[in-house]
């Protein structure tokens, strides 16, 4: 074959025995056989490219699908859920007018290859999912995991990722309202970059991805199509034209253009508001291939496209390149013929390219012509919905028993007051607990003027409506170490933490999104971890009464046989009727009471202390009590509504000690603390028992708060008072740490490590 000769459907029929590089494209032999069976002939080059992409792990969820079904089966029924799993992003009703859509997604591998662009396009991609639901994106969050802070490659990856997240979000004009940053050697060769976006829409503006209405026009909006990220498909070029190795045909990194994305947002919202589109879909990981097959499959089932109409940025692109390109900042709209002119005019007004490339048909087939010759003729559902499903083997890792008995509770501990004092400071300065301002200062947090809580609060909160004051809060949490010890409990711990982080702001949790970061699904141990984690989340959400609305799976996060810790990252969305009643982080005013809700046990396995001071990971993670979490959330929402709390802060990694450090460093006053009678100071300060919240009660509310706790059976322990005359932390009978010393330990670690 030569470059001049197009591999059309006709050619494919005439040359049934042509050898095709399906294995190089990642298709198994039986998968290739199935494609031939579906088509009744060999696939054309373009079809082969499309099947290889759509049937890949990334697009078909072939290894995870059998497990993810649990979410659907166990999801509590709630009238709030307007769109759920399977849509671009889940949509939940907020009040009778407004709905919110949110989702978290990974961009791990691209961020390792090219940190800045990889992270940037991760943010760009998740934003388009939000637009596709008919929503205006209103905020982003980022959950980041790197190797050791001191590792030289972290000095390459971290600043690049942060610059990418910041640059894209800042330029597109979305406040970053929170996230997490975590360091562990297991992420050295596999950093995790998970980005979340949230958007708001009037309920009636909800959009669908259906290409229905025969004769309706398919319009491509946004950037030109180039050779970006034509990953596996470049095999087609090299396998067929081996003598022609020009650098131009090599797959390349995707570069984000947030400016075009901003224009896409504004133009799409105008189109929705004017009722000009019948269906809309973003172009994500699999570019046109995915958008065309999904919209066609979701609609009346037929579509015809003239591929040569797609505006190109590069020369010499062949049909399969155009179909596989992952060029960013593109959307596909389905438009009634009568509205086409208006749609094109609106796009022009925003300086955005818009091109009619095809139309909806009733043929039941997706037919793609290139200069009048059919290069694709397939049933669209065979691409979009009927990909392979694997029941991968599952096996519990054999080391779990040994790990479980290697408990951190047996490790040597600091015992003297001076040693404990030192530990408080060392922990505050440890990479996972130290101040993350070096990162978060690179993000705009206030654009839109609706950010009520951002970093360093437990959850981000944005106002949705200035008149009613209704708002939402979101927290994003994960802990790979807990999940490594026990993936079922670990995923529930992440869920519980995100849930609690939302609750401590005074908001009521209502929905969940998740990003499941794991090693190779071909490793039965990883598959076991995956199954346990999914079950944990599904059971947890069922118990908490909040549905999983969508998410993302990222497999193959491993180097050689070494997988990352299983890392489910959970996003919880909450709603608050009046954002002016939010509970901030801090210490309130001098004279206010500091108290702890929840029970402190001796739970140190998997803790930050065990890792930071002993590099130890073993034992079983802290217990989860979801009943308790629900009562706690209900209590906090009530206290917030009554304005009975001056501040609150969730206890998580680093335990009470770290919560106090953070509260003090975010307040102008000091804390005068007296530990309860008989409490072992070390355990009380560093245990990571869950379900605990540090609260600050304004003067005069102590009794009311105490009785509200008692009514719900929630243990509350007074710990001390806020004291303007105390400098920093005063732990009565034990030690003092002046504010300056606390701040010196907590702040500046990341900048210093990166040499800035």
């Amino acid at each position: 074959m030569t470059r001049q000769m197009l591999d059309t459907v006709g050619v494919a029929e005439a040359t049934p025995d042509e050898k095709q590089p399906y294995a190089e494209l990642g298709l198994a032999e039986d998968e290739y056989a199935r494609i031939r069976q579906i088509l009744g002939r060999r696939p054309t080059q373009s079809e082969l490219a499309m099947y290889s992409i759509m049937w890949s792990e990334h697009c078909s969820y072939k290894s995870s699908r059998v497990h993810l079904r649990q979410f659907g089966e166990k999801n509590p029924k709630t009238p709030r859920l307007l769109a759920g799993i399977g849509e671009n992003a889940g949509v939940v009703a907020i009040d009778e007018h407004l709905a919110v859509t949110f989702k978290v997604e990974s961009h791990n591998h691209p961020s390792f290859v090219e940190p800045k662009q990889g992270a940037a396009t991760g943010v760009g991609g998740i934003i388009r999912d939000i637009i596709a639901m008919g929503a205006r994106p209103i905020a982003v969050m980022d959950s980041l995991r790197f190797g050791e802070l001191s590792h030289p490659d972290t000095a390459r990856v971290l600043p690049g990722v942060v610059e990418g997240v910041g640059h894209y979000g800042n330029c597109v004009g979305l406040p970053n309202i929170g996230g997490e940053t975590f360091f562990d050697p297991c992420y050295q060769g596999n950093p995790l970059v998970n980005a979340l976006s949230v958007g708001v829409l009037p309920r009636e503006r909800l959009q669908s991805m259906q290409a229905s209405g025969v004769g309706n026009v398919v319009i491509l909006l946004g950037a030109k199509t180039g050779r970006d990220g034509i990953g596996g498909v470049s095999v087609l070029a090299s396998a067929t034209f081996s003598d022609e190795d020009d650098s131009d045909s090599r797959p390349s990194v995707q570069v984000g253009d947030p400016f075009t994305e901003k224009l896409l947002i504004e133009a799409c919202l105008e189109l929705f508001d004017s009722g000009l589109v019948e269906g809309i879909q973003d172009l994500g990981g699999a570019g046109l291939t995915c958008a065309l097959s999904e919209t066609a499959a979701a609609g009346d089932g037929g579509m015809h496209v003239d591929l040569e109409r797609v505006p190109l940025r590069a020369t010499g692109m062949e049909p399969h390149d155009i179909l596989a390109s992952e060029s960013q900042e593109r959307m596909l709209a389905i438009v009634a013929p009568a509205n086409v002119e208006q749609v094109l005019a609106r796009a022009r007004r925003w300086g955005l390219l818009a091109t009619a490339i095809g139309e909806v048909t009733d043929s039941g087939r997706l037919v793609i012509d290139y200069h009048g010759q059919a290069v694709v003729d397939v049933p669209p559902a065979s691409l979009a919905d009927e990909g392979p499903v694997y029941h991968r083997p599952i096996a519990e890792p054999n080391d779990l028993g040994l790990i479980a008995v290697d408990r951190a509770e047996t490790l040597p501990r600091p015992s003297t007051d001076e040693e404990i004092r030192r530990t408080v400071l060392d922990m505050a300065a440890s990479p996972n607990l130290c101040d993350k301002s070096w990162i978060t200062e690179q993000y705009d947090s206030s654009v839109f003027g609706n950010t009520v809580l951002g970093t360093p609060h437990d959850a981000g909160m944005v106002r949705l409506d200035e008149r009613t004051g209704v708002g939402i809060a979101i927290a994003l949490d994960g802990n790979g170490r807990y999940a490594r010890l026990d993936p079922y409990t670990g995923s529930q711990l992440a869920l519980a933490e995100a849930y609690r982080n939302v609750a401590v702001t005074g908001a009521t949790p209502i929905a969940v999104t998740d990003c499941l970061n794991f090693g190779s699904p071909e490793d039965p141990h990883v598959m076991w971890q995956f199954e346990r984690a999914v079950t944990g989340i599904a059971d947890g959400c069922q118990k908490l009464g909040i549905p999983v609305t969508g998410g993302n799976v990222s497999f193959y996060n491993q180097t050689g046989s070494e997988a990352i810790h299983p890392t489910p990252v959970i996003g919880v969305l909450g709603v608050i009727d009046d954002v002016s009643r939010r509970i901030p982080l801090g210490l309130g005013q001098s004279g206010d009471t500091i108290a702890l809700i929840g029970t402190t046990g001796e739970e140190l396995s998997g803790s930050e202390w065990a890792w930071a001071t002993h590099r130890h990971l073993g034992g079983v993670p802290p217990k989860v009590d979801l009943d308790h979490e629900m009562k706690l959330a209900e209590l906090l929402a009530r206290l917030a509504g009554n304005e009975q709390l001056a501040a609150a802060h969730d206890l998580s990694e680093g335990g009470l000690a770290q919560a106090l450090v953070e509260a003090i460093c975010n307040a102008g006053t000091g804390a005068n603390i007296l530990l309860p009678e008989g409490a072992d100071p070390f355990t009380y300060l560093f245990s990571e028992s869950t379900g605990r919240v540090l609260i600050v009660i304004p003067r005069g509310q102590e009794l009311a708060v105490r009785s509200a706790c008692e009514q719900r059976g929630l243990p509350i322990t007074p710990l001390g008072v806020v004291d303007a005359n105390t400098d920093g932390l005063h732990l009565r009978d034990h030690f003092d740490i002046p504010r300056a010393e606390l701040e010196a330990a907590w702040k500046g670690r990341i900048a210093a490590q990166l040499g800035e």
Partner: protein
Amino acid sequence: MSARIGIVTFPGSLDDRDAARAVRLGGAEPVALWHDDAMLRSVDAVFLPGGFSYGDYLRCGAIARFSEVMGLVRDAAGRGMPVLGVCNGFQVLCESHLLPGALVRNAHLRYRNRPARLRVETAATAWTNAYASGAEVVFPAKHGEGRYVADEATLDRLEANGQVVFRYLDNPNGAMRDIAGVSNEAGNVVGLMPHPEHAVEALTGPSTDGLGVVASITAYLNEGAAR
């Protein structure tokens, strides 16, 4: 009748809605202006908001200067109409030569978002007359290219003429002489990097000091009307 403040939306403007909110909260009337329209809709003053006009790709504000609306703004400013540029708007004003100097990459090379403490150096402009000269205010500063530069002669002239309008108390970007905002000679055109429009509600901002900017322009326009 309340003052009509035109707020320009360029492709890539981000703070246009926020500017409109600030204007509204300050008791004036926001009027949307589109970059490509050759009309100023009989506004009394113009607010160029922050953002990344045209992606800020070549130099911040460089391309916005060529828009239709900037031609009108230049003429109107020449006739004395008050014009305020915040962040990207300030960059556009410098690129359009309506204000002296230029804004370049922060000395530390990073985008940085921090509340900035500023001193209002002069109350003798259309946009600052409601403050006391020397007053301290806090506005969010968030930019990657906000370091104000000009040659020494220009800087000396600005100081001598009272054209330095806002000065950083903790210089966040390496700006020459800690300059955060300047005016033209007549005092009707003012630009600054930090965002007064993000300091108008206690709930969402580090202060409500930004309302003073709207109060100033309202007072200035009322006085003009009374004259």
